[in-house]
């Protein structure tokens, strides 16, 4: 299992996408530093909430996870190296799980750390708020990783489908239609950050209970991981 994890970390960290990931991850921290040096009109709480909601949770987190998690299997399906993994005496979940963990390690952890640092800078060293932001982002990263890892196996158009999900479903529909807010990783992430530190995102209308967010995140993680395992068992390996 660790062999697949190490292999995938090397694959993802060595790809060109990692530079885009690093650039995206550095943006909130840059915004935080600008906030400190510029003569801002917003309060630190307001600015930290906007950075978290608009930059981190709505754009950077899903984009980073989309770029990396779709490549966790997508690269191997594309270049036909997947055969070297599936012709081994290991259960399919032991291929899927380390790949998912690797995309969280390479994408989710930098986003979480970057986000926590940005909040800490904006809030002038608010450790609890920074930790809550980092933990919430990490949970969201795991849920996105499961969805996009499955998508990378299921279709060659995973990036396109992921973009539609992030920017049409989550940013446009789930953000404004209360009826489908239960089906949005973005909402789960915001609710979890708020649940871990109620001082964070107090100005944001989340409309989702912490329990619902935790259950939703877990269900997404488990279901899409199971779907990826099922797909890997049933697919014709190129």
């Amino acid at each position, binding site marked *: 299992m660790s*062999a*697949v994890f190490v*292999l995938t970390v*090397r*694959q993802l960290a*060595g790809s060109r996408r990692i530079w885009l990931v690093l650039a995206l991850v550095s943006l909130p921290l840059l915004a935080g530093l600008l906030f400190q040096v510029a003569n801002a009109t917003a309060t630190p709480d307001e600015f930290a909430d906007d950075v978290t909601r608009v930059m981190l949770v709505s754009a950077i987190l899903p984009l980073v996870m989309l770029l990396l998690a779709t490549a966790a299997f997508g690269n191997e399906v594309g*270049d*036909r*190296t997947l*055969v*070297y*993994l*599936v*012709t*081994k*005496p*290991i*259960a*399919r979940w032991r291929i899927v799980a380390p790949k998912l963990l690797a995309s969280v390690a390479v994408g989710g952890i930098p986003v979480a750390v970057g986000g926590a640092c940005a909040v800490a800078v904006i809030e002038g060293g608010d450790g609890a708020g920074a930790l809550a932001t980092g933990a919430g982002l990490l949970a969201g990263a795991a849920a996105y990783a499961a969805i996009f890892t499955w998508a990378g196996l299921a279709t060659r158009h995973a990036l396109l489908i992921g973009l539609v999900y992030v920017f049409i479903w989550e940013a446009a529909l789930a953000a404004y239609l209360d009826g489908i807010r239960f089906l949005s990783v973005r909402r789960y992430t915001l609710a979890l950050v708020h649940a871990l530190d109620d001082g964070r995102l107090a100005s944001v209308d989340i409309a989702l209970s912490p329990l619902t967010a935790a259950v939703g995140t877990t269900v997404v993680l488990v279901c899409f991981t199971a779907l990826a395992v099922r797909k890997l*068992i049933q697919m*014709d*390996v190129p």
Partner: protein
Amino acid sequence: MSGTGEPAIVLDRLSRWFGGVVAVSDVTLEVGAGVTALLGPNGAGKTTLLRTIAGLIAPSEGTARVFGETVRGNQAIYRRIGYMPEHESVYDFLTGRQFVELCARLQQVDDPHAAVGRAIATVDLIAAQDRSMAGYSRGMRQRMRLAATLVHDPPLLLLDEPLSGTDPVQRLHLRDVIRRLAAEGRTVLVSSHILEEVEELAGSIHLMVSGKLAASGEPRAIRQQLNDRPFVVRIDASSPRTLAAGMVELDAIESIEIDSEGRLRVRSRNVTQLQRALPVVAQRLGVRLLRVEPLDDSLESVFEYLAQG
């Protein structure tokens, strides 16, 4: 090494199609210890058949059993199978040794370090083992991929075009390695589209054409069938009618035609005899041979002939 005298691979009326395209049609065969070759032109269905045996794709109809078990969905059986795909894709960011080591670890080999060393030594690539595979020649990749295939010492090797891309020296070496692996009791199934290549390697050959099994037998028997097929040769000569009159009495000749451009089209069932007799007849009659050209010597035509037979 397969343990019993039972064939390692048993295919029963196996078919596989992709949409409306039939890649493998109704193939029944058994493969036992030693080297067996799947021979056929490109697109004959060899790779699809090997991929089905390896459990990478499911049969549309029929069954494929390895050591008496179904492979598809049976991960444990991969301890006993080494599969080398046709395409040469590898993890380019790994060194050769890291790649073989990855396969050893995934195979849960007891002593990966020793197994990796043995496998790489078998393919004679110790000197290049710590170089990135991105810089390997095609032949080196083939050899390192073979090392990765046999690192867990499996009793069954499925090798898809293992000699392709190798230079003559590498080919001889790989051929020896494959023979040696089989001599140790393994079952080795190799695919190729080159008769001469498998003729010296395999103890038996299964010919495939258009997804079907066209013929099976020892290399010598297959070669004989190839030699016995009707063969058409086009001959340009300084005096075609004189040459035709001289050749018509030869036993090897089935028919002779002269086309509109004055060239002979000679049909024979004994190529060897024709090759020997033609220059003798031409010299005796004082005819100069300008060009002798086989018209249907493509591999496809050979396979088509055998498939019809």
